[in-house]
């Protein structure tokens, strides 16, 4: 009985490759349609549009490299690049540092771990919402909660959101505030480090600080790397908070003009869709370059145990 079934399945194996191609096609059909119609197709179209002048109403008109030469003299674009780089390069390291610190503290057998983890994780679910951005406007406004708190300490506040020097800082704070989701990933990573390593290290007389530097940190570098890549890509695409906090303008004085916000203004405010497509491709190149550099640099600091 079992021999015959085995024979039968052996007989099947000859044509498995073919048969599975057909089955696989049906399983993947929705994904294929989505990939070509919604992702790759529009990607190619957007590359094409980036060499045209297009406003939705008239057919796209080829204009060569004009969109790209225009970028060179576009001061608002330069401003938005500066704002976005500052945002990414400040908020991501601070956010990840905080996430790592709290994950390490929580991992060392704190009672009520589940409670703390929930409390720290909650903001990362709320942070992307319009409601929280509205709240931020009230917290950091001239007569907002933050200044009330400072007032109790006898410190004179300012219009954190209405002044160009500090407006971006409030958005960075908001991104840092959502450190819960990388923290949860760090916690999962920390749990995979065998306890034996710490026991061996403490037998050798290593202090807790030493253990952190020589055991925890090296073994955690793959997770740090993963979080870093993800959060950088994520931060480059931030949009909602800047839009709500600045009322869609990117102000004051373009100090919160995120790249995506500028792209939105050009494409869907001015219907300058050729230029917006070129901006989109520049964004892709920038994010791609950051990711590539990250992967390249990982050779030097990411430690793989196996």
């Amino acid at each position, binding site marked *: 009985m079992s021999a015959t079934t085995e024979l039968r399945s052996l007989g099947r194996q000859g044509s498995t490759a073919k048969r599975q191609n057909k089955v696989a096609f049906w399983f993947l059909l*929705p994904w294929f349609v989505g990939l070509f119609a919604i992702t790759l197709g529009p990607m190619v179209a957007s590359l094409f549009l980036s060499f045209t002048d297009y406003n939705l109403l008239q057919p796209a008109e080829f204009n060569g490299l004009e969109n790209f030469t225009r970028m060179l003299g576009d001061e608002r674009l330069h401003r938005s690049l500066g704002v976005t780089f500052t945002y990414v390069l400040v908020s991501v390291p601070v956010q990840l540092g905080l996430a790592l610190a709290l994950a390490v503290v929580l991992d060392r057998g704190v009672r009520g771990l589940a409670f703390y983890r929930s*409390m*720290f994780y909650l903001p990362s679910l709320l942070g992307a919402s319009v409601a*929280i951005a509205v709240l931020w406007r009230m917290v950091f406004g001239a007569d907002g909660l933050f200044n009330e708190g400072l007032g109790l300490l006898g410190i004179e506040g300012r219009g954190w959101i209405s002044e160009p020097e500090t407006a971006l800082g409030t958005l960075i704070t908001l991104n840092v505030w959502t450190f819960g989701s990388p923290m949860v990933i760090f916690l*999962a990573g920390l749990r995979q480090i065998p306890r034996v390593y710490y026991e061996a290290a403490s037998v050798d007389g290593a202090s807790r600080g030493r253990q952190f530097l020589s055991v925890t940190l090296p073994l955690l570098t793959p997770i740090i790397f993963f979080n870093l890549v993800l959060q950088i890509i994520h931060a480059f695409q931030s949009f909602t908070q800047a839009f709500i906090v600045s009322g869609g303008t990117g102000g004051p004085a373009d100090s919160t003009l995120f790249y995506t916000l500028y792209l939105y203004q050009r494409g869907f405010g001015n219907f300058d869709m050729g230029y917006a497509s070129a901006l*989109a491709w520049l964004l892709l190149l920038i994010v791609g370059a950051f990711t590539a550099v990250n992967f390249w640099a990982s050779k030097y600091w990411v430690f793989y145990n196996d």
Partner: protein
Amino acid sequence: MTDTFATTTRPPSGPAPRRARGGFRPVRSIAKHALLILCALVMLYPVLWMVVSSLRPNDVIFRDPSLLLNDLETGNYAEGWTAFADPFSVYLVNSSIVVLGAIVGNLVSCSMAAYAFARLEFTAKRWWFAIMLLTIMLPIHVIIVPQYVLFAQLGWVNTFLPLIVPKLLATDAFFVFLMVQFIRGVPIELDEAARIDGAGHPRIFAQIILPLMVPALAATAIFTFIWTWNDFFSQLIYLTDPDIYTVPLALRAFVDAQAGTNWGDALAMSVVSLVPIFLVFLFGQRFLLRGIATTGGK
């Protein structure tokens, strides 16, 4: 082995290393808890203040940074509910339609694709898989302009279709990846046993794999819920008719129109808009955390 070694060589008076790490030293433990509670309080203060302030009269809101509530003022909720162009329930229903469509779409299309990637052999599988992973990182801005043109030509602008149809086509590749990771953890012997019993791939998928991957499906549903409920960018682009505004669009329109005069109503409706997320978080946390660990821990 190291364990016994450690306990036998240590002087009996000193605490065992494991216990020291466990935080049994009372002073250190109390300090740590105090620090953690302080951290959590600072983080959650704005949210708590939002809830408390939404229950205060409008003129008191900015003069009271405390969390103490003298009397419950529900006027902001009653007023805010009808202060927008439509009753707030309209926006809640609109958001719910989009969210439900997105959840169903993601569950069906992503699980199908994931089954193929995890269990089937087909031509150039590694390449397709690599492309799928790359699309996770693709910024939506790169495709939004032509996508808008496409949906505009189909007459889909100001309908929910541009927000739902892409989900039916597994464009949220993150979930495909999450499910592939999960299916890989299901013993292949189960598939083989079913195959010997004469089951084909559709049946193995529907009757063996799907029931076993409920945690991954739950994580997908919950993440889709939260991300779609919070989504602003694509809803801002595709929905311009105030009658089909979703919750985030309605909130934004209200806040901009008020220009900072009626914060009580804005706060109250902001709180309302966060309640579904909070509930999902409360009941689905287990799946969320496991979902993150599945994709992130690797």
